[in-house]
């Protein structure tokens, strides 16, 4: 126990030193982070408060149905925490230099596992816990709950809930790595993706939100306890259900029914931590060796696929550009966390397109028509922002330690910078324009709107890509090998917030002219195309400003001392 405390104490001291560093750059960085995360939390608080208030007091869906929706939301949250912990834990628990160091010390593998689990949990879940707390505050403020309720719910209900998701993820990973020794890592990865998708599919098939709404609204307002039978039996074993039940009974003041769910959750969490410790005692060291072995055995030979993209085969491009493209392609394809994330994103996109294709809104109000257009447009913007944050922001950091060979080669750093901007822009723009054109056409069946959306998407892509490359250069972390860590750093969060502000402004610029256009359409008036010039012109000016500002920051940053 003592060595566990020593390691955790050293880590806490390091964190506190960083947090309370009194150099002006550090203070500015910390203050801006507080501002960013505070603003982010406040926005989530407002949204949660508005959504709760709307559903309860305006849509009158009733507390029962509301808490069932909350349970589903918590399920998605649980899976997000779980998946986040699993992805990050592979590098934290198996590929970190610190683990190599700790393994050489007289500390048991189970303790190292627990130390690294704490590390992993705080790293991969801190933003999500902030999000959860802000949602809880927004939800609670509608019911006028006392302050100690938030404190209790956050630390004794929400935290155990997240810990369950986290510990299940790392324990599962440990066992899966043991199995992977027999199945192979690629097969295991594939099975894991299938398993996650199946879990989501079966949950929503079994809980069937559409049927739930129909049934509940048929009997509204006599719903509460009576509709307990609508819960499929397996749902009662899920932690998200326990949290939702606790909240449901406690906001009604029935603590006698709420408290057992708290105990259930807390004891499950404790039990799982103990169980994970026991499994780690038996398997952590073995699975760690398994990964070390796999690293030396696998992928040691050159991959001869894609002959044209093989080094040494001329493609007709300038030699420096050619080798940069080939290097980036091979580094991307040989790093599972890169292509796996991209595949997952494409799967989600496919789901989004299928959903939009089956929507039949038949909206008659111009404002709602503009809102539906803007929601789909915003989704595209959000998609560009997310892809940029995850893949474009880390691209300069991913030059990594070997950046010495690029910086000392006769390659202009400007050229390298523009190469990164153009490559990212081409790739992201292809995806974003496909989604934008397809989704807007499926939703509105209007060519003018498709052109507006496609043009706005182009401008948004230019602005967001340049912001992410520029900020990625400014906040470059050349020593960090894990792109996920780069994409979740403080600098990345700041960039993402700036992207969100930019997208909000773009939406605000579009909403009034769009509503007027729909009004004219509904009245059957002559809808000229003149209305598009002012909003698109404004977005173009705004995007160019972002582009120029980000590029000048990025170009200056890339020339900095290494």
């Amino acid at each position, binding site marked *: 126990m003592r060595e566990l405390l020593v390691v955790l104490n050293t880590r806490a001291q390091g964190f506190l030193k960083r947090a309370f560093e009194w150099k002006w750059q550090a203070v500015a960085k910390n203050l801006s982070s507080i501002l960013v995360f505070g603003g982010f939390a406040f926005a989530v608080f407002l949204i949660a408060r508005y959504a709760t208030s709307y559903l309860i007091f305006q849509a009158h869906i009733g507390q029962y149905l509301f808490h069932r929706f909350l349970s589903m939301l918590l399920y998605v949250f649980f899976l997000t925490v779980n998946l986040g912990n699993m992805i990050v834990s592979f590098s934290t628990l198996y590929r970190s230099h610190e683990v190599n160091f700790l393994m050489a010390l007289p500390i048991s593998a189970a303790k190292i596992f627990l130390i690294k689990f704490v590390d992993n949990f705080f790293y991969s879940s801190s933003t999500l816990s902030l999000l959860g707390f802000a949602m809880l505050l927004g939800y609670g403020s509608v019911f006028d709950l006392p302050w100690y309720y938030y404190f209790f719910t956050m630390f004794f209900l929400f935290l155990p809930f997240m810990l369950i998701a986290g510990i299940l993820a790392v324990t599962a990973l440990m066992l899966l790595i043991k199995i992977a020794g027999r199945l192979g890592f690629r097969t295991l990865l594939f099975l894991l993706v299938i398993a996650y998708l199946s879990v989501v599919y079966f949950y929503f098939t079994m809980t069937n939100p559409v049927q739930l709404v129909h049934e509940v609204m048929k009997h509204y307002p006599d719903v509460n306890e009576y509709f307990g039978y609508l819960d499929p039996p397996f749902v009662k074993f899920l932690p998200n259900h326990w949290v939702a039940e606790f909240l449901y009974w406690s906001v009604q003041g029935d603590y006698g029914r709420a408290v057992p769910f708290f105990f259930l959750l807390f004891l499950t969490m404790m039990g799982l931590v103990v169980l994970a410790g026991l499994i780690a005692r038996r398997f952590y060291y073995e699975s760690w060796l398994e990964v070390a072995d796999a*690293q*030396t055995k696998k*992928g*040691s*030979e*050159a991959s001869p696929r894609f002959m044209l993209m093989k*080094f*040494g*085969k*001329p493609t007709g491009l*300038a*030699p*420096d550009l*050619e*080798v*940069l493209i*080939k*290097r980036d392609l*091979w*580094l991307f394809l*040989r*790093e599972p966390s890169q292509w796996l994330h991209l595949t997952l994103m494409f799967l989600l996109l496919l789901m989004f397109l299928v959903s939009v294709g089956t929507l039949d809104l038949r909206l008659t109000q111009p404002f709602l028509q503009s809102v539906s257009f803007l929601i789909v447009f915003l989704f595209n913007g959000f998609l560009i922002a997310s892809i940029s944050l995850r893949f474009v922001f880390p691209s300069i950091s991913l030059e*990594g*330690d*070997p950046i*010495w*060979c*690029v*910086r*000392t*080669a*006769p*390659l*202009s750093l400007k050229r390298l910078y523009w190469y990164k901007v153009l490559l990212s822009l081409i790739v992201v723009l292809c995806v974003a324009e496909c989604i934008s054109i397809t989704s807007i056409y499926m939703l509105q069946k209007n060519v003018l709107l498709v052109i507006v959306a496609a043009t706005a998407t182009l401008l948004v892509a230019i602005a967001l890509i340049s912001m992410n490359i520029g900020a990625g250069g400014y906040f470059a972390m050349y020593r960090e*090998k894990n792109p996920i860590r780069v994409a979740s750093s403080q600098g990345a969060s700041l960039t993402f917030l700036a992207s969100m502000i930019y997208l909000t402004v773009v939406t605000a610029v579009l909403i009034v002219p769009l509503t007027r256009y729909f009004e004219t359409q509904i009245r059957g008036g002559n809808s000229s195309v003149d209305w598009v010039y002012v909003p698109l012109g404004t977005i173009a000016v705004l995007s160019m400003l972002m582009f120029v500002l980000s590029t000048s920051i990025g170009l200056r940053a890339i*020339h900095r*001392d*290494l």
Partner: protein
Amino acid sequence: MIELQNVVKKFGSFTAVDNLNLKIQAGQFFGFLGPNGAGKTTTIKMMTGLFKPTSGFCFINGHNVHWDPLPAKKSFGYVPDQPYLYDKLTGREFLYFVGGLFEMPPDEVKKRIGELIDMFEIGTFIDKRAEDYSQGMRQRVVLSAALLHDPKVLIIDEPIVGLDPRSARLVKDTLKQKTREGLTVFMSTHLLEIVEELCDRIAIIKSGKIIYEEIRDTSRAHRRSNGQLEAMFLELTK
């Protein structure tokens, strides 16, 4: 030829390199000595364009590294103190990558890779990913990359650290041979026996300033040194 004119590098209030002046003629093997933190790596990083001097100029073959970087960089090869490679690329792919950055035709790169594999005895490791390499193998690949475009100047930061005796001998012999062929070498190292064996000119740097310079006759100095350089180094840097 390498020339440093009044080069200063400050990190905040700390002066890492203080008004350094050096002129190394073509074909010279220059040994740059100094204790830890003396400013050796900082000097090398300024010479290679990785750091910008606070003031002063660095010239390689007559080109200012910071004003006219591309011709300067075309004429030197650099071996860093840590042989970082792309873990997911093979040694051969890395060498093709470097060849492309120097705009070498693929056929010439192929030919040079073959020669360098033989020269540094890399063998079949060339087609394994760098994540599987030992420190010594990484260093051999990095040295190959530095010599790939047949530079006129070679700037090396600690070339022998981490190499086994056989690899160290290989590197020393290669450097000797290349110097005979007219290559100018600027080498920073802690290892005095290497300096005694290879360098025909040395300088000792301490707290960012050159405190000693000597032109040596390597053929005789090696035989006569008998630990004299070590004693002098310890005395000057204490």
